């Protein structure tokens, strides 16, 4: 009898162990490198997040959770002491400790080609206290510290030190739930479950990411059952996938705001023809007229097929600094015309709107829709839609009078757009790099700088909201259009939860 029980138990064990489970994911774009500190780009970060751990990690709603750091204290505004997880091994068997953390941060700081410098720029020093405690000293009080750390994948010092950039770019060794198996460039990346992952082995033994950049191809792959999950479902295919009884679709509001900005610093702007010869955008009434005059509901309904959320402010509601009291104004072309007349442009003016045509969802079509909205209030808008490789260098030189662009608050904190887009352009101190309409208000700058170094969450949010109140509601420095939405489709065989940060974190997929 006992023997029989053992045999049955063994059989059951074989039964559960026998079939290796594989999760196949079809992605709209693949990884550019396996070096987690080279190219800071969503698709690469998303794939590598399965191999590498960070000190702290976002959950699906961009709340910060412990990861390789188990706990932390903030004894002084500029000092953070972090206790590290013990007994964690890298995929090659090396032990994880404080040396690896110090090494990782210094590599980003010292390597000229790293795209992650912005994440560690406020960190002045990283020190090892003992094998499992590290101390961070920031240049000034830095409330977004923890959120920035979610972008720093921890490398193994013993593995990486002395290796060439090329080698590191092909040999990712982390502590995460999956280990690297192979990478066939442009085709697929294969990972296998790390049996020693500190939180327990992942449910799927194998993880395959396939690059299916063509929309129709991606849809065909999920419909034919070749992959279990796809991201960036083409809007036109959502209905078809919904009608398939074997598939689920998911919609998750993202962090990216699509907005318009205009030249607010030149008396004569290069791409504007106005009756007075003066740049009309210098007048806040003209800027406000644009806000009233854009039929955003129509853009969302007809161009985005309802897969976008009309925006009333800089960041979506999950982001720190969101202000529930600011609502989007109602589409009102009559009021827009009145404002234009008050500003001295009863017959409008003409302007060129620059927009990328391969960067954001339907970017060129949105620009066209803006142009037709503007025509109704008498402003002649000519759309100049170009590839992103032309668009970004052009706007970076302020060689534009009016442009459509996007910003993702990827830290989940409002400071990212406040620093990068709203603050006056200040290359020396690193503010306003994307403020290419060069809006500038010293009051706003002061509030932003104060909030950037305010460790009291309540008064900090108050400052951020006040800055937004002045910049957006009073000065109308940008015209918010909408927040993008992420759409996924999965097989009903798996349990998938979409994430705000748009990453595919396979460990949570059941």
């Amino acid at each position, binding site marked *: 009898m006992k023997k029989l029980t053992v045999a049955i138990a063994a059989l059951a064990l074989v039964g559960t162990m026998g079939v290796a489970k594989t999760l196949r994911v079809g992605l709209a774009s693949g990884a*550019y*490198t396996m*070096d987690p500190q*080279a*190219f*800071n*780009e969503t698709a690469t970060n998303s794939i590598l997040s399965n191999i590498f751990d960070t000190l702290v990690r976002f959950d699906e709603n961009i709340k910060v959770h412990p990861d390789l750091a188990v706990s932390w204290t903030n004894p002084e505004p500029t000092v953070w002491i972090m206790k590290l997880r013990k007994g964690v091994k890298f995929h090659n068997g090396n032990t994880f400790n404080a040396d690896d953390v110090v090494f990782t941060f210094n590599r980003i700081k010292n390597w*000229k*080609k790293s*795209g992650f*410098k*912005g*994440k560690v*720029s406020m960190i002045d020093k990283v020190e090892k206290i003992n094998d499992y405690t590290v101390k961070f000293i920031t240049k000034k009080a830095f409330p977004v510290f923890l959120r920035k750390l979610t972008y720093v994948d921890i490398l193994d010092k013993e593995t990486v030190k002395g290796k060439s*950039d*090329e080698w590191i*770019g*092909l040999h990712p060794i982390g502590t995460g739930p999956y280990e690297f198996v192979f990478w*066939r*460039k*442009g*085709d*697929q990346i294969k990972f296998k479950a790390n049996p020693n992952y500190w939180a327990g082995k992942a449910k799927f033994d194998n993880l395959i990411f*396939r*690059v*299916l*950049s*063509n929309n*129709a*191809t991606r849809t*065909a*792959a999920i*419909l*034919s*059952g*070749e992959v279990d999950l796809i991201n960036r479902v083409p809007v036109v295919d959502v209905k078809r996938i919904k009608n398939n009884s074997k598939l689920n679709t998911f919609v998750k509001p993202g962090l990216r705001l699509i907005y318009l900005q205009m030249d607010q610093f030149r008396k004569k702007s290069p791409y504007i023809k106005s009756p007075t010869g003066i740049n009309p955008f210098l007048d806040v009434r003209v800027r406000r007229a644009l806000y009233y005059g854009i039929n955003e509901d129509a853009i969302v309904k007809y161009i985005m097929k309802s897969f976008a959320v009309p925006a009333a402010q800089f960041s979506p509601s999950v982001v720190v600094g969101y202000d529930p009291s600011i609502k989007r104004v109602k589409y009102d072309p009559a009021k827009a015309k009145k404002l234009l007349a008050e500003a001295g442009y009863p017959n409008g003016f003409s302007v060129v709107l620059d927009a990328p045509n*391969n960067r954001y969802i339907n970017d060129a079509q949105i620009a066209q829709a803006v142009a037709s909205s503007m025509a109704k209030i008498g402003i002649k808008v000519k759309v100049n839609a170009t*590839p*992103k*490789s*032309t668009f*970004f*260098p*052009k706007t*970076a030189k302020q060689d534009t009078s009016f442009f459509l662009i996007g*910003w*993702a608050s*990827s*830290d989940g904190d409002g400071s*990212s757009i406040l*620093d*990068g887009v709203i603050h006056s352009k200040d*290359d*020396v101190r*690193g503010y306003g*790099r*994307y403020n290419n309409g060069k809006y500038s208000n010293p009051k706003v700058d002061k509030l932003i700088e104060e909030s950037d170094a305010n460790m009291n969450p309540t008064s900090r949010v108050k400052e951020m909201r006040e800055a937004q109140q002045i910049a957006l509601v009073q000065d109308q420095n940008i015209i918010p259009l909408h927040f993008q939405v992420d759409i996924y489709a999965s097989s009903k065989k798996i349990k998938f939860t979409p994430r705000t940060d748009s990453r595919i974190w396979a460990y949570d997929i059941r």
Partner: protein
Amino acid sequence: MLKYILNRLFHSVIVMFVISFIVFFIMFKAGDPVQLLLPPDATQQDVIEMRHALGLDQSFIKQYEAFLKNVAKGNLGTSFVYGQPALNVVFERLPATLELSILAMIFSILFGVPLGIIASIKPKAWYSKAIMFLSLSGISVPVFWTGMVLVLVFSVILGWLPSSGRGTVYLFTSAFTWDGIKHLIMPVLTLSFFQLALILRLTRTGMMEVMMQDYIKLARAKGVPRRVIVYYHALKNSLIPLITVIGIQFGQLVAFTIVTETIFAWPGTGKLIIDSIQNLDRPVVVAYLLVISFIFVAINFMVDVLYTFIDPRVRM
């Protein structure tokens, strides 16, 4: 012969030198890749540092000079985006594209030539007309449409063939495993439709012309069997223009598989070059175009050599 080869080699080097200069110049003018390489939250300081690290803060002449010096050492530069040697990035993707192009070419020749001959012998027969009708659709239907219809029918509806990807790869190719072959069928078919139709039509025209020649009439009068006339005398003489076109078309296939590669998510160089142009990844774009022009030059050379074997009247 040796003099001829050396001469051709010298010309090729000049062609590739000119190409490198033009591409380098266009990519230099196209814009600043650093704006695309760094995330929005990078500061101006980071931008300046990276520009310096990549050597992009130098003048055009200085940058091109540095490029030439590296080329002399066999190094085409490091990709801005992938961080790997540009030539490696291209060579990693090249087998997939070559595999697709070679198989599509073989398929087109294997079916195009015999069908062309059949259609030329009895041009008024119903099957000849059917062949010609199909070849017309092969030439006029866009590749994108053909590919998508194949995917819809054989993957989504019937579920017989995988819709995309390369499957199992063994020794640089998918052609040695059943899984790999299943992945190859639809891309190869899609890519070969146009070529097949073109080769078929060329064969037919060539054959019909040759069949009117006096030496064919003489052979017939002598009582040479019809099979010998068609497959030996006539076919051999209609091959020269066909080989020229096949040579040119093969180069085209390698360089323009992009549409087919996109539909079937085939990891070849077509997709790579589009991505690299979009990201302003100059070293990869230059390396790719040099490799492709080398292939073109090599094919033209081989075609020239083949001529002399087929037609002794052609002299080098």
